[in-house]
């Protein structure tokens, strides 16, 4: 009888412990910040300090946040799907340190989204370019060539700085 009672308390206690630990995890990881569009969320960890700093020193900081370029904008469903998928990939890479020793670069699917967002915002300027590209630079059956905006505009908006030490003194208490 006593053991049974004790087991009951232990089990209740352990459930509380799990809930408590989980609550702490939510707090420590700033979980809810990921539901916002604040660019500072992308530097919750240090991995993207350079990307943040270069963007923050570019003209795009006045117009476009990280997610406005890097997530699909055409539908909320696709946006959330992409956010969760990228979020999982990034958390995995960060936790198991699989990114170390590699240059961070946008995946193919991310590149498609970014390109679509470039075009969406700069539609009026690039519409003729797009039309010309379709007419004269046909590469495959889809009628699209695979050059991206940044194949030429290589410094927009992140510059070519890649390593952490390429953007010294750019964050500090000013941002965090």
């Amino acid at each position, binding site marked *: 009888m006593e053991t049974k009672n004790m*087991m009951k308390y232990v089990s209740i206690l352990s459930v509380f412990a799990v809930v408590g630990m989980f609550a702490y995890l939510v707090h420590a990881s700033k979980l809810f910040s990921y539901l916002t569009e604040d660019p500072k969320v992308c530097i919750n960890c240090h991995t993207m*300090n350079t990307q943040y700093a270069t963007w923050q020193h570019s003209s795009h900081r006045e117009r476009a946040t990280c997610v406005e370029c890097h997530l699909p904008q055409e539908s909320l469903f696709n946006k959330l799907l992409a956010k969760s998928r990228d979020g999982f990939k990034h958390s995995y890479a960060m*936790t198991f340190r699989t990114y170390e020793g590699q240059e961070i670069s946008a995946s193919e699917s991310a590149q498609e989204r970014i390109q679509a967002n470039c075009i969406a915002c700069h539609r009026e300027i690039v519409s003729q370019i797009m039309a010309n590209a379709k007419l004269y630079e046909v590469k495959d059956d889809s009628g699209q060539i695979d050059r991206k905006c940044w194949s030429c505009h290589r410094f927009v908006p992140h510059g070519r700085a890649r390593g952490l030490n390429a953007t010294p003194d750019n964050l500090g208490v000013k941002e965090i």
Partner: protein
Amino acid sequence: MKRSTLLTFVSVAAIVPIALLAISINENKAEQKELATVPPIKKLESRSSEWGKHYRRQYDSYMQTRKSDKIKDMLQDSPALVVLWAGYGFSKDYNAPRGHYYMLEDNINTLRTGGPVDAITGPMPTACWTCKSTDVPRLIDKIGEMDYFTGKWARHGSEIANPVGCGDCHDNETMRLTITRDFLKRGLDAEGSLKAADATHQDMRSLVCAQCHSEYYFKKTEWTDKNGEKKTAGVVTFPWDNGFSAEAMETYYDDISFVDWTHKVSKTPMLKAQHPGYEIFKTGAHGLNNVACADCHMPYVREGGVKYSSHNVSSPLEQMASTCMNCHNEEEKAFKDRVARKLERKTELNKTAMDVIAKAHLEAGKAWELGATEAEMKDILQDIRHAQWRWDYSIASHGSFFHAPEETLRILGSAINKGQDARVKLRAVLAKYNAGDFTAPDFSTKEKAQEVVGLPYQKLVDEKMTFLDGLRKEWIEQQKQKGLYDPAAWEGLVFNTSYAPARTSAEVVKK
């Protein structure tokens, strides 16, 4: 298995990965915090090499300002200056400015600051240190603004140890741009078009420069120290209440009957324009488009993959690819030629103005000599005062011919006009005393000009050398004891002036 046992088992199984994840997250956060921490630098640290330990590139580029080391004797170049400033420090010694690195050295070496033998001798007040050293904000913070601005220049000799540097413009905790001289804030608030509190980052990229590159005077201010003793401070003050223009400041000075000095030859109650660089800049094309000083004088440069702003403050023409060419699409040579032409235009009017006003002084001197009365001379002296003020305002900041060519030439034109007004009136007075054909004596060289105005040049040099080999060395010893002396700021410095042979610091020590 019982339900409670199962629950416990599952819970523990969940806790383990959650705990591991929490540890991992905290490690990542600690890393980020460490990376984003600004290194500890003391509040108002005056030794730039201390900042340089953490901001190597900025510091190294700042130290490059030592390459701007040529002494160009402006009095030799334009002997008329000696006549214009007769009775005032600038007629003793005046060189074109060198790099930031030399600011304190040149302030100490110039004949203007004289040869004090103790803390209470010498011609200049403490205010003359104000724009020369990072130790100024530190000292003001330590003893208070009023106390700082009280007494003779030599009083602070043992405290002022480092040339203008990091601490003059940067906050030690955030590296943000900051105004360390409150008189700029007071000036801005009085002028009103940009209140100090409203300054944006882009504004700050000019305002940190405007702390010193502006017109100012030493305002006599009574104060009582903590022992109840009444004292008078000479507080650096910007005459901006009526606006930035030459006329607005002229009215300001006239309204308070301010006089910098009385001219030795013409007895004119004179004004000395310092260097209204910021004020004139704001009227030019770049200033009107809110281009900041730093945009052209501290351009972003790349070293490998690193981009930072060069702290080698210098002429933008020396690195046009990273300055002018960022905005202008033109050939460098065409650009340089155009700037050179702007300078020629200013030089032409500048020479005329100096000649006219110098002659006006000498002719006024002759009129006094012949017995002219105060009533006869009053209007003339007012014309000379205004003429010289306007001339000085227009050229004293050196860069005005480029920053705002139209404004510069406009003011020079009005200076010449005022000067000639004085001379027309003077001719009538001279004629009255039978000297209608008087010709001003020759002042075509620095030596002749100094003789004309009666300047004991060799005595000044001797006093200065005695000071440099005596009191100056005591100051350095005291600075070392106080931990203010920064060897990096002085090592290898060559003693270079317009009045004595150059020598290295090692030779100075030997002597």
